Every structure is written in structure tokens, then in C-alpha cells.
């Protein structure tokens, strides 16, 4: 039964990718894309129900493993992928209308979009650390051509940078995986089971600490490149700024989470083997550095998508920091933050995408008065910004509050750093978004009705999560936190 549900989850995007590879240039390709994403979302919901009901499951000869931790990411990924596909339908049509994209490019975009979803879902659900690596690499490969979709010099440069840097990063992660296998085969013996996370998790106490320590450094640096941790982040702003907005939304909202999930899987093993706080300290260091550097860079940005890309670095840094602290509250908060950040950031990118289309530029000084042109875009951007900056009553406030109080309790010296960084980020982003939303405008109307339902749907969810956490959801997060050894 679980096999079947999982198969539905993974085969739907695969089928979608294949169908769109054939029919990608038809006029209804966008609708097909949304439909396939919707089916994937339904499959994810079914799977989630199942896991909530009956706990962690393995499937397909133990090759796949679903527990509370990754199933929440599966649900989130499928949901955001679905809403992004809704958003991208009018967005991409407008881009085509503006002459920025050709039908062939859209063809590529649709089929790659589905395959990208497949790669992310595989990376999330796989039990095999090696397959996780393969899927992460596949996620890079499917998105790299999307980043250069516009074929402008800047977008090609961004894609090249993305490809090379993530390629190098992911290669280091492979080395980490090999080291992990090296340690595991001494305990589990050679062959198929030595890379299965469930098996590794059972024997983690017997894994050689020196090897695991080294392996974790490589895994963290490798997957950290994908998460966008400073100083490995330099691809991220470029790729977000130069790629099409839906791609920015899924990169920021989903791919970073998936990479972080892989790091957390490794951290559990390393903690079990070392019995020290080595992995956590490393993650806290990277996380704190990312928060601070990203906050400092935020105020210097001129390009709106670039600015929000830096904001993603900042938030992923915060999540990494929280995971690094460990403990039930911090892990709980980190997962909550992952959820609300994904929802909010993709909502912001949706709004930003339309704002940029209206203004015809990504330079913030030339985007003005969104409220006049389209109150919905303006409100979406404003509310999204307030949410991402951690204003109550949005969910990010709750998660940041939890993270900072835990930090205050466990690592008091980090609190002022975090607060100052968040303050700087607030000043930088709010100061720049405010004139964009209000003020006099030069923008013009769009040929297609923009899709703003996803924006408000996401923001509504974030708002709900901030005001009221349903007990089953809290329970679910708590179980996941327990699984991560929190």
C-alpha cells in the first residue's frame, strides 16, 4: 500500500515530465503542468495522512523511507510546486507576450519543472544516502537550464556560476557520502544496505567517529552550497535574480529546504556516532555567518529579486543555526521556520514577479507605486514583506521568536548578533519595499490577468500558522523533532 502511494507521488511528476516533453509546446501545456502538479500534491497529501496515521514507513525494498520529518517537507514541496505552477501559467504567458520567451523555451521550462519536482521528491523520500546525492545533483541539472532560460548574458553567467559552484559543492558532498559508506561498510558489511539511512541510524553508535566527522564536514560544505550558506552562497543571488521568477520561487522555497533535509539526515548519524555537539557547532557557525553576512548585503542590493535572494540566505542561515542548536524547541522552531519561510518567500516572489512585469525592470529604484497599478500586487508584496521580516502575527514571528528565545537560553552570546542582524535586515528590506508599494507609478497594465490567489493563499497559511498552530500539526512537528534527536 505504501509502495503504491509512494509510486503515485514519484511517478506523477515523472509522467508529467514525459508528457510535457512531448506536448510542451501546445497551448494547454501550462494547464497540463498545473494539473500534474496538482496530482502530485494530492499524492503527497495521501502519503502524509498515511504517515501521520501509522508512523514512519519504508518502501520498495527499504530504498525509500518516509517519516514525520521528511513527509512534512514532501507535503510542503508538493504544495508550493503546485501553487507555483498556478502562478507560472499567467506569468510565463506574459513573458512570452513581452517577447522574452519563445515557445521552445516554454516547452523546456514545463518539462524541466516536472522533472525538478521529481528530483526534489526523490531526494526527500530516498532512504539511500547515495540516491539522495544523485537526486540533489539531478535537481541542479534540471534547474540549470531554467536559470539561463532568457539567454541574456547575465542569465547565462548566472547559470554557469550556479552549475559550476553547485557542481563542485555537490562533488564534495559525494566525497562525504563515500566517507560515510566507508565507515558504514565496516559495520554493516559491503553491499546495498550500507548506505540506507534507516540501517545507518540503527548502528550509528558503532560508526567510526573520525571518519564521520570528516564526512560531515564534506556533506555540510557540499549540501551547504545548495542551501546557500555563506561563504558558499555566491551562486544564489545571481541564479535567483536572472532566472524566471517561478524558478526563483521554487529554488528559494523548496530546493534549499531539500538540501537542508539531506544535511539533517547526516547530522543525526554524526551526532549518534560522535556523541558530541560537533555537527551542531559547525551548523551554528555556518548559520550565524550566513545570517550576518546576508543581512549586511541586503542593504546594498538594487535588484529586487536579488535582495529577496539574500533574504533567503539569511533565513536558511537562521534555520541552519536553529537545527545546529538542537533540542526539541529549536528543532521544532527550525521546522516551523522552514515551512513558513517557504510559503512566504514563494508568495513574495510571485508578487515580485508581477511587479517586475508591470514595471518592466528589476531595479528597485524604477519600480514605484504598485498600490496604484494593482492593489492586489501591492498588498501581496507589502504583506509578504512584513511576514518575511518577522512581524507578528505572521508565522515567521512565532518561529523566530522561538529560535531567539532558545538561543538566549542555550547560547546567550548569539542573541545580540542575531537580533542586530534581523534588525539590519528589517531596515534594509522595509526601507526598499515601502516606496515600491506606495508612491507615484510609471508601471503599465499587463496583457494577462496575474495569478494572485497563490500569493494570498500562502500568506493566509502563514498568518494562520502564526496565530494558531493546530494541535495535530504541533504534534507532528514535535514527533519530527524527536526523530531528529531534538
Amino acid at each position, binding site marked *: 500500500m505504501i509502495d503504491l502511494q509512494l509510486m503515485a507521488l514519484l511517478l506523477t511528476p515523472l509522467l508529467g515530465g514525459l508528457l510535457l516533453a512531448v506536448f510542451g509546446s501546445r497551448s494547454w501545456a501550462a494547464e497540463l503542468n498545473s494539473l500534474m502538479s496538482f496530482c502530485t500534491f494530492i499524492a503527497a497529501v495521501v502519503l502524509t495522512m498515511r504517515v501521520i496515521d501509522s508512523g514512519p514507513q519504508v518502501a520498495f525494498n527499504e*530504498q525509500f523511507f518516509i517519516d514525520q520529518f521528511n513527509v512534512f517537507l514532501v507535503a510542503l514541496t508538493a504544495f508550493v510546486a503546485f501553487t507555483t505552477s498556478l502562478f507560472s501559467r499567467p506569468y510565463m504567458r506574459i513573458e512570452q507576450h513581452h517577447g522574452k520567451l519563445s515557445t521552445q523555451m516554454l516547452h523546456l521550462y514545463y518539462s524541466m519543472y516536472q522533472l525538478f519536482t521529481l528530483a526534489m521528491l526523490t531526494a526527500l523520500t530516498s532512504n*539511500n544516502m*547515495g*540516491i539522495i*546525492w*544523485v537526486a540533489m*545533483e*539531478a535537481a541542479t*541539472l534540471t534547474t*540549470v*537550464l531554467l536559470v*539561463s532560460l532568457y*539567454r*541574456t*548574458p*547575465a542569465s*547565462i*553567467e*548566472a*547559470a*554557469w*556560476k550556479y*552549475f*559550476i559552484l553547485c*557542481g*563542485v559543492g555537490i*562533488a*564534495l558532498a*559525494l*566525497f562525504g557520502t*563515500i*566517507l560515510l*559508506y*566507508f565507515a558504514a*561498510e565496516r559495520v554493516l558489511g*559491503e*553491499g*546495498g544496505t*550500507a*548506505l540506507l539511512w534507516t540501517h545507518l541510524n540503527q548502528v550509528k553508535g558503532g560508526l*567510526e567517529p*573520525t*571518519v564521520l566527522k*570528516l564526512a560531515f564536514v564534506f556533506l555540510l560544505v557540499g549540501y551547504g552550497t545548495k542551501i546557500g550558506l555563506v561563504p558558499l552562497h555566491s551562486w544564489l*543571488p*545571481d541564479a535567483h*535574480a*536572472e532566472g524566471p521568477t517561478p524558478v526563483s520561487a521554487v529554488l528559494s522555497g523548496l530546493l534549499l529546504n531539500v538540501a537542508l533535509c539531506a544535511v539533517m539526515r547526516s547530522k543525526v548519524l554524526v551526532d549518534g556516532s560522535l556523541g558530541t555537539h560537533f555537527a551542531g557547532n559547525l551548523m551554528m557557525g555556518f548559520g550565524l555567518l550566513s545570517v550576518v553576512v546576508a543581512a549586511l*548585503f541586503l542593504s*546594498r*542590493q538594487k535588484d529586487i529579486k536579488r535582495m529577496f535572494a539574500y533574504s533567503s540566505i539569511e533565513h536558511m542561515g537562521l534555520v541552519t543555526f536553529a537545527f545546529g542548536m538542537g533540542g526539541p524547541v529549536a528543532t521544532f522552531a527550525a521546522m516551523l521556520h522552514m515551512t513558513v519561510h517557504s510559503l512566504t518567500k514563494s508568495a513574495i516572489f510571485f508578487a515580485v514577479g508581477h511587479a517586475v512585469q508591470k514595471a518592466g525592470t528589476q531595479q528597485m529604484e524604477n519600480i514605484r507605486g504598485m498600490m496604484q497599478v494593482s492593489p492586489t500586487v501591492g498588498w501581496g508584496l507589502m504583506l509578504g514583506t512584513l511576514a518575511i521580516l518577522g512581524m507578528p502575527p505572521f508565522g515567521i514571528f512565532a518561529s523566530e521568536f522561538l529560535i531567539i528565545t532558545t538561543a538566549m537560553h542555550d547560547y546567550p552570546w548569539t542573541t545580540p548578533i542575531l537580533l542586530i542582524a534581523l534588525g539590519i535586515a528589517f531596515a534594509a528590506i522595509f526601507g526598499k519595499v515601502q516606496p515600491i508599494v506606495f508612491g507615484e507609478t510609471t508601471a503599465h497594465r499587463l496583457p494577462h490577468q496575474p495569478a494572485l490567489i497563490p500569493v494570498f493563499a500562502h500568506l493566509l497559511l502563514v498568518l494562520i500558522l502564526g496565530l494558531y498552530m493546530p494541535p495535530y500539526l504541533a504534534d507532528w512537528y514535535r514527533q519530527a523533532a524527536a526523530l531528529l534527536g531534538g
Partner: protein
Amino acid sequence: MTYTIQIINMLASMLLLIAFAMLSQRRILSLINLFAWQGLVLSLSTFVVAYSTDQHHLYYSAGLTLLLKVLVLPWLLHRLIRKLNVRWDVETLINIPTTMLVGIGLVIFAFNLAAPISQLSESITRGLIGIALASVLLSLLMMLTRRKAVPQVVGFLAMENGLFFAATSATHGMPLVVELGIALDVLVATFIFGIFFFQIRETFDSLDISNMEKLKDD
């Protein structure tokens, strides 16, 4: 020490030597040929490991390596540079002797890092992790110091070689499904690199990466 271990150690050293040779190489064509040689060494060492540990799936890996890294990828790269007509000398950002010195530093670093691991392992794998890591870092250095797109890609592929060596020789091979996945990724990556070469050249009229330094945080 038995002969197979000695042979594998020898091949490991050759792998490292080729990594150094690539680092010092000035011509693109020789670079690609060296890459093919590295693939051959890799394939041989995989074969020897397969023979000595009697693991059948490693024979497939060896065959796959031979096919992919000695024949297909070099052929693709040769074709690419013929099509793009780039046979000029490689330009480096730092001069070659300095690069070599940095390379030696990296090797020492890698060996140092791997030393506790080699002391752990009593078997065939002693020290191979260090060599694999050193090759990976050297290829990384090559990617960093080259200005043109093609050498960067060769560096990327050479890095994959080092990793593959770690996977097959140091750990007696990862599960086959993982190896197949890795091979597929490498192949797809090469194709995408090929597409990129054309995109870059169309857009910048050159494969010089230094054209692509517009995106910066000022």
C-alpha cells in the same frame, strides 16, 4: 602486502600524477587526452579491485568507466572543441609554478586530513582516501585557476574521477544503483555543459569566462 594492493597503490599514484599533469597543462587537447588517461587508470584500478575482492558489480563499474570516461566523454569533448574551434592554449589566472606549489600544499592538506582514516583501515584501502581527496582538490584548483570554459569542465570531470576512485577503490564500490546514478548524472552534466558552451559562445563570442564577471555585489 600482496601484489594487487601494490598495483592499486601504483594506479592511485598515477591518478594523482595525472591530476598534477593536468594542472600544469597548457593545451586544451592534451588536457582532454590526460583526462582520458585518467579514466583509463581509474578503470584499471576498478578492475583490479573487482578482481581482488571478487565483486562482480565492480566489473560493470570498470566497464562503464572505460566506456564513459575513456571513450565517450573525451570523444564528446574533442567533437565539441572541433565544432567550437577552440584549440588555443589554456590561459591560467595564476602562473603554473605557483599553481603547482599550491597543489603540493593541497596534497599535504589532503594527506593530513586522511591520515587518521588511513591509520584506521587495516586493509587494501590504506591511504587511498587521501590520494582520492588530493586528486579531487587538485581538480578543484584547476577549475579555479582556469579562465576558459572547456578546461573548467575538464576539471569538473576530473574531480568526478577522483570521487569515483574513492568510491570504487577506497570502499570497494558503492552499491550499483548509486554508481549508475552517478554515471548518469555525469553524462547529463556533460551534455548540459555542451549546451552551455554554445550558449556562452553565442552570447559572448568567446568561451572566456572572464567575460562573465558582470554579476557582482558592488
